[in-house]
């Protein structure tokens, strides 16, 4: 029954969703690699980018997108400086709760900025044209879906090149394998962390553009749902390595898309339950991650 329900349309939408989630997963995974920090406030970076796009709606498109990148990257670096840096020595749980607090803080700041005109939600109109659908072989594909898939593939390829071929990439890989030893061997901590945070900011801005095209009404909880899902996906995939984390992000996006297509229309409201139940199942069977090399025991995790 499920096979019959999954048609080409569902698959295209699922891949498009997976691509966006994969981009977010890389952004979260990069920072986790060097800092061992799960950034719950990642979605609020995306949200800040989306608001920038909305507030600059009457600018030329290029200027608007440029402003979005500038704001998100600046916010990302500021977050590292004021929050991540003092937290470096804390446990992952403490860091996660702190970024949870930062997320609420940023969301409330956005609410204050947004509500000045008396309504919640700002439309981002300038880039909405990308949201049109074109038909390819009987399947409606929105331009932004193509954009999302292309951007995801290109960005991931560039990132792979950066990590494999450049000095800073080598240093980032070294730092995420063993931060202390990497430092002993002359890798400068602040530089590596700065680079990772910068890259994750660039990715957040990219995601902000794509999500804003898909959903032009920007509200304070913009990208919050997505972030929760991606965080879950990253852990499910295996947060210890960047590629498993990315795959996890893609997988949960893809699974969400497919389940959404497979559920009867009157049952789609239960989509989150179905997805998260699947997540719990995977976590229980493979706590170290779906794509992790070996099964680790509980004792190794604690």
């Amino acid at each position, binding site marked *: 029954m499920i096979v019959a329900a999954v048609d080409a349309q569902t698959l295209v939408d699922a891949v498009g969703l997976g691509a966006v989630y994969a981009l977010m997963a890389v952004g979260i995974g990069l920072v986790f690699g060097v800092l061992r920090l*799960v950034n719950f406030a990642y979605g609020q970076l995306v949200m800040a980018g989306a608001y920038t796009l909305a507030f600059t709606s009457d600018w030329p498109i290029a200027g608007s997108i440029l402003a979005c990148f500038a704001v998100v990257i600046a916010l990302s670096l500021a977050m590292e400086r004021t*929050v991540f840096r*003092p*937290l470096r020595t*804390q446990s*992952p*749980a*403490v860091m*996660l*709760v*702190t970024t*949870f*607090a*930062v*997320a*609420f*803080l*940023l*969301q*409330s*700041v956005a*609410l*204050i900025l947004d*509500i000045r005109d008396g309504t919640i939600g700002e439309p981002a109109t300038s880039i909405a044209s990308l949201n049109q659908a074109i038909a390819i072989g009987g399947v409606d594909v929105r331009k932004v879906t193509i954009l999302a898939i292309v951007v995801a593939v290109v960005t991931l390829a560039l990132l792979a090149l950066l990590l494999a071929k450049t000095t800073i990439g080598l240093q980032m890989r070294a730092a995420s394998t063993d931060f202390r030893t990497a430092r002993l061997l002359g890798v400068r901590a602040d530089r590596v962390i700065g680079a990772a945070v910068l890259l994750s900011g660039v990715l957040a801005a990219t995601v902000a553009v794509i999500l804003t095209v898909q959903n032009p009404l920007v509200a304070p909880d913009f990208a*919050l749902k997505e972030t*929760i899902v991606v*965080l*879950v996906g990253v*852990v*499910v995939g295996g*947060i210890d390595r960047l590629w498993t984390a990315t795959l996890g992000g893609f997988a949960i996006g893809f699974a969400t898309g497919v389940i959404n297509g497979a559920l009867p229309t009157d049952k789609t*409201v*239960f989509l*989150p*339950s179905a997805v*998260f*139940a699947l*997540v*719990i199942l995977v*976590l*229980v069977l493979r*706590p*170290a991650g779906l794509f992790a090399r070996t099964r680790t025991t*509980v*004792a190794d*995790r*604690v």
Partner: protein
Amino acid sequence: MRNRLDTAVALLGPALLVVLVGIGATFVSRSNEIHFLNALASVAIVVAIYVFVGTSGVLSFGQVSFVALGAFAAGVMTVPFDSKAGVLPDLFPILRDHTIGNVASLALAAAVGGAFAFVVGLPLMRLSGLAAGIATFAVLEITHNLLREWTKIGPGATTLSLVPETTGPLQATIGALLVIVAAFAYQRSPLGRKVRATREDPAAAQAVGISVHLQRLWAFTLSGALCGFAGGLLVHMLGSITTEQAYLELTFLTLAMLVVGGVTSLWGAVVGALAVSGLDTLLGNAEDGIGVGFTLDLPEGSRLVILGGLMALMLILRPSGITGGRELRLSRRRAA
């Protein structure tokens, strides 16, 4: 002797604070009473969360799902019989055709919370660290989604109203005290000591024959029952509730309270809950504009900005909270 005194103080200190707040609630105007009751309900929820997060050291974003479950169980079952079929027509017949009293509904809330926590905990308590945090988040999402969309078990996306408002100063105080006593009894009991051993060093605890999984499961179940009970208190205080009221913001607020007070002690949970809900009330009033010597008029939303900033600052500067994560003691200088 001093040891026994410390034990007594560790229970009586938090209890006294709660009683004082309860008495305070009877002296203020009707419109301010709700703030005192809110503080007491917060104490109940935060202490209930502490029973798992504090004693086991495992982060959970999911305890509020038990609060939600308890609140809706107690709420749905106490809507007066005459209006029930009208306001909640889609309920399962067994839920629709029965209505229970106040005390029974609180017991039901605790039972439902505990049973759900036990079932969920069976598989989840094998996880720890990040995987546990994320998996409990998944529980919160599922609970919220089901409560919001499944109209056979509750009001769905609409507001559940007509719940008898039985949580006055007396019930709020007794309820909060019950949760504190249960938490205290648990942490003094052999079970409580074992689960704290797994928090301090899981490997060593296993080496002396303590099952990490089992001990965490007991803590999770008790915490779930107390959370459910606290949810019952909450719904009887509010009189009407939506699923959004027991979701992300409540999770954030209660975690902030626990962290600000100090995660690893009962005293920290109580102090944090009272301090943050006091501040929250003050800021909430300031958003509407109040005169405190000068007129303080904050824009809407600044409440969460300040609370978020405070919580982040606390975690950065003093991760062990106001109380340092220690119980109340008379003798100050003692090794932790």
